[in-house]
């Protein structure tokens, strides 16, 4: 099996996990072609998640911006409120077939943790979620949601206590106990086969966009936008369009307080090649190869690396990546709420902001699709704080 996207990817993990990763790889090779597996995945996507998600024409936004016709891919309408469930269904089905009874997951904003806890509840599996302590504070509601669903949430107190540290803790836990446990990585990151597997399960997003836009417009869009932290909703959105060279693919990453400050998570703009969390990719790091502590208002984009396939798409020029600041994302969050009546996740607001900027340079006869990866209920209190209002959650 090819573990690489160009020079990126690979399996850079401790020897203890190699046997398990190779087992996973073999299992995925078998089941991704297994008709029963595919049928069960599709059935849960339709009957549990509520797929296909809508491709919604944002008429007021289109009119207001005066540029291209804008469609929103509504992953926020999925059960659990984000795209993360797509991947969790796939990986949990695989884990069950491998005889695993326990799922562990990392989470940043809590969306993946909630999706993991949800699927674990549905499948009657044990679930433990690792979440940076800082994130448990800024996403307290999601912590309680996970607990309601029967998962155990570990607040990780090492490092900067955010997503990177949650991945470290989950990997360490997996190292200690892999015989009955599947590590359900939530983004298109990590050692092979995770980036490919997560992409495949998330590609349902792009496949639906393609079908839906052809039905509505009879042609493919000119541009497709998605937010990128590790990059799972983006790769799921982009992948089915990779061979459609006329479709521009744009990833929007978190520039925090600005890419020229110390407070950002803009791996594409500021990262350099490195090897971490099992993969060769781009990382924000210092001159000695220590991984940087990054920052974003969005817990889900607050990650110092990016999936290896995105690094490859950037290198080959097939996709482009733009930085979006906290301020721009918050403005887009509020704009979408007021213009379309949609409260999106602060992660997704980065994609909306990037798309709004690009729309200024596009014509009325062009079409743009923005993936709204999740809903924003979880962010309401944080946005209020950003605007100086202290809500008591």
């Amino acid at each position, binding site marked *: 099996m090819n573990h690489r996207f160009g020079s990126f990817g*690979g*399996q*850079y*993990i*401790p*020897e*203890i*996990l*190699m*046997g*398990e990763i190779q087992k996973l790889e073999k299992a995925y090779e078998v089941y991704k072609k297994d008709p029963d597996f595919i049928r069960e995945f599709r059935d849960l996507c339709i009957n549990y998640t509520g797929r296909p998600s809508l491709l919604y024409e944002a008429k007021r936004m289109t009119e207001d911006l005066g540029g291209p016709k804008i469609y929103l891919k509504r992953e926020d309408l999925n059960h659990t409120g984000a795209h993360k469930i797509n991947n969790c269904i796939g990986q949990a089905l695989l884990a069950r077939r491998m005889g695993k009874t326990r799922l562990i997951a990392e989470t940043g904003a809590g969306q993946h943790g909630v999706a993991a806890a949800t699927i674990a509840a549905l499948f009657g599996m044990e679930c433990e979620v690792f979440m940076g302590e800082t994130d448990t504070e800024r996403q307290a509601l999601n912590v309680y949601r996970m607990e309601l669903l029967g998962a155990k949430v570990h607040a990780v107190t*090492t*490092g900067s206590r955010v997503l*990177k*540290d949650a991945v*470290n803790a989950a*990997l*360490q836990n997996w*190292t*200690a*106990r*892999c015989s009955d446990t599947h590590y359900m990585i939530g983004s298109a990151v990590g050692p092979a086969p995770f980036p490919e597997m997560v992409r495949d399960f998330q590609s349902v997003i792009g496949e639906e966009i393609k079908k839906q836009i052809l039905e509505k417009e009879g042609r493919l869009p000119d541009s497709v936008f998605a937010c990128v932290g590790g990059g799972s909703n983006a790769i799921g959105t982009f992948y089915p369009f990779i061979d459609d060279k006329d479709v521009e693919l744009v990833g929007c990453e978190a520039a925090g307080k600005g890419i020229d400050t110390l407070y950002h998570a803009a791996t594409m703009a500021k990262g*350099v*090649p*490195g*090897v*971490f*969390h*099992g993969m*060769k990719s781009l*990382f924000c*790091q210092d*001159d*000695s*190869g*220590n*991984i940087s502590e990054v920052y974003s208002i969005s817990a889900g984009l607050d990650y110092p690396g990016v999936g290896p396939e995105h690094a490859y798409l950037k290198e080959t020029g097939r996709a482009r990546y733009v930085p979006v600041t906290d301020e721009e994302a918050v403005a887009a969050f509020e704009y979408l709420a007021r213009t379309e009546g949609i409260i999106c996740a602060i992660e997704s607001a980065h994609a909306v902001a990037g798309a709004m900027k690009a729309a200024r340079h596009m014509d009325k006869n062009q079409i743009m699709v923005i993936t709204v990866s999740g809903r924003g209920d979880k962010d309401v209190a944080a946005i209020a704080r950003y605007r100086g209002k202290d809500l008591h959650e």
Partner: protein
Amino acid sequence: MSRIKNAFADGKALIAFLTAGDPTPEDSVRFVLAMEKAGADLIEIGVPFSDPVADGPVIMAADQRALAGGINLKSVLDEVQEIRKTSDIPLVLLTYFNPIFVYGAERFFEDCRKAGADGVIIPDLPFEEQGDVRPYADRCGVDMIQLVAPTSKERIQRIARAASGFIYVVSSMGVTGMRDGMQGDLKETLRQIRQVSNVPAAVGFGIHTEEQAALFASEADGVITGSAVVDIIARHGKSVDDELSDYIKKMKKAVR
């Protein structure tokens, strides 16, 4: 004979690990020499890393302390050079792969050779991913120390065949850190290794008592103790010398 072979030439070897630059580079150099004097046969020097995913809380904390003091791969190589001025003890660097990747693998192994480092352990560079760096290590005469874990199974012999220096046999599942008990079938792992390789096999992960050291040494060619050393250094700081020597003497006696 290579320095690493020397470590195993006279009975069972005691291998001690410490984190470079904890609390300062000068202290680390002194601790290495003190441990040599107390009977350690080989020293593993840990290169501090921001995110040591194969390590437990004791070594993670030591890495943070050392990084706060500005330690990096280059300064660890300087420490090696400093130790080599007065000592011939076998030295093996333990570093995650990213610092090497950023430093440049070719330059890194060349500098290991110049400084006098005898081997390198890279916990997140499994056998299958070593192709890009192995030629540089070989060319510089630096041993790439291979790890074998309780889960390595059918890969044990493939890894052992390619091993040089010594083979690091991971005693149990999980990250580094002191614990009791033993997982996996150590005897069987060692039997498989010895079928295809005469490179010495040392057992590590979790070893902190004399009883454990004696038990593992009865099967393997050497015993590695790490977190316990780092913990002693963390508790006693700069004035650790006596405690450190006592611990090493005790452990060396146990493995003999």
